[in-house]
């Protein structure tokens, strides 16, 4: 199999995909697909061709073709990604929910059409229900309305919430949710602000 691994930041423990039951024809299609992919894109704006190169998590999840990965692969993906989580040095996990709401609404950032100088949003509403007043929410992810009431405002919840936004694959292998911290999409402060949107009692999410 062709490898295009190029890991940024913390190196991941290699995730071996044991016997993913691929027929020889399937292997060939995968190789052809990788070749087609690299011949079919050109760099634009802030986006270079390295975006096509997969890390181990992306490769393992692609091989699963939309199905859940085998249990042992999932466990490895989660462990490797959990190891990447960098908690804030100041120990504060909760920021400003008002800023968090703006980040949750904003879908810009990292596209070749976007200004590389930002802003970059989290686009949480694309997939999740959050504040009740926003009718245009997606359903790819679960509703997070009244998150605080359901999870309780404990230190454990705060740590989980920060880490889930930082690297979703740490808790759910092959999640559809981006790894906002690990992949450098959102800053630490932005993650704190989104965590506040979920956990601040004054946040509209909890009204």
């Amino acid at each position: 199999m062709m490898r295009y691994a190029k890991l940024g930041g913390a190196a991941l423990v290699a995730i071996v995909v044991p016997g993913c039951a691929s027929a020889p024809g399937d292997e060939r299609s995968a190789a052809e697909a990788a070749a087609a992919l690299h011949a079919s894109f050109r760099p634009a704006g802030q986006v270079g061709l390295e975006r096509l190169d997969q890390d181990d998590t992306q490769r393992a999840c692609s091989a699963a073709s939309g199905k859940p990965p085998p249990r042992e692969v999932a466990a490895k993906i989660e462990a490797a990604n959990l190891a990447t989580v960098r908690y804030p040095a100041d120990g504060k996990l909760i920021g400003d929910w008002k800023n968090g709401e703006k980040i949750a609404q904003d879908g810009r950032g990292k596209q070749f059409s976007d200004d590389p100088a930002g802003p970059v949003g989290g686009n949480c509403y694309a997939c999740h229900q959050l504040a009740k007043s926003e009718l245009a929410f997606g359903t790819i992810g679960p509703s997070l309305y009244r998150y605080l009431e359901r999870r309780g405002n404990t230190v454990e919840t705060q740590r989980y919430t920060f880490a889930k936004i930082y690297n979703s694959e740490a808790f759910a292998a092959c999640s559809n949710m981006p790894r906002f911290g690990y992949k450098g999409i959102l800053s630490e402060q932005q993650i704190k602000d989104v965590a506040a949107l979920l956990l601040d009692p004054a946040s509209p999410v909890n009204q």
Partner: protein
Amino acid sequence: MTGVRSLGVVLALAIAPAALAQSSTADEIAKYRAALQDGNPAELWEIRGEGLWKAPRGPKQVSLERCDLGLGPGVVKGAYARLPRYFADADRVQDLESRLVWCMVTLQGFTPAEARKNPFGNGSAARSDLEALTAYVASEAKGVKMDVPLDHPRELAAYRVGEKLFYYRGGTHDFACATCHGEEGKRIRLQDLPDLATAEGARAAYTTWPAYRVSQGELRTFEWRLYDCFRQQRFPELVFGSDAAIALTVFLARNANGAPFSAPGIKR
């Protein structure tokens, strides 16, 4: 999907009032879409496209009326519903857009760069002949059952590559086509997301492209749909008529086989 679903179990589901608000929102959005059906500006592109198809153009000053879209030279009726397919003269699997470029080059004498100019239009400043031609040819397949062939080995190979690309995760956000289009009954913001790996989902989606996008005021082709999905996936720029574009189109068009073609549609 797995990840999100397991998180969903942990978090419990949306509470009742929210669900209620959601259903009345869906009703009103359905009304909105229904109100747009009467009077689709895509027709303005169809008129222009028909004119371009029939007009003598290019260095050779001939029309495209001898262009073979797969059903014989000049046959437009129903051609879109049988594309992409393998063309022996080009020795390539081609979708409609790349076939149009081929005909503009071989019949009319345009250079490939001229033929591919403005694949995606931008108002009156940069109008796209390819979008107009595509709208016209697509409109001539209305009601025709999708029947995309996989008889040629190259067609089958393209389908298999397209399927792989559909699940290919990459970029800063780990997105694949399947991230949004791999599960039935989901939506992004208020837009329903078909599961394109199933016949039902592919039929509902593929047969409504090209479409007039009200958010842009433009007629958009299926090549544009793929181009803009990849932009939002945070991938680099998809090359017009590239192998990846055509392989994905074969995968999705073939999955839609059996459904009556009903584009150009109108979408938000």
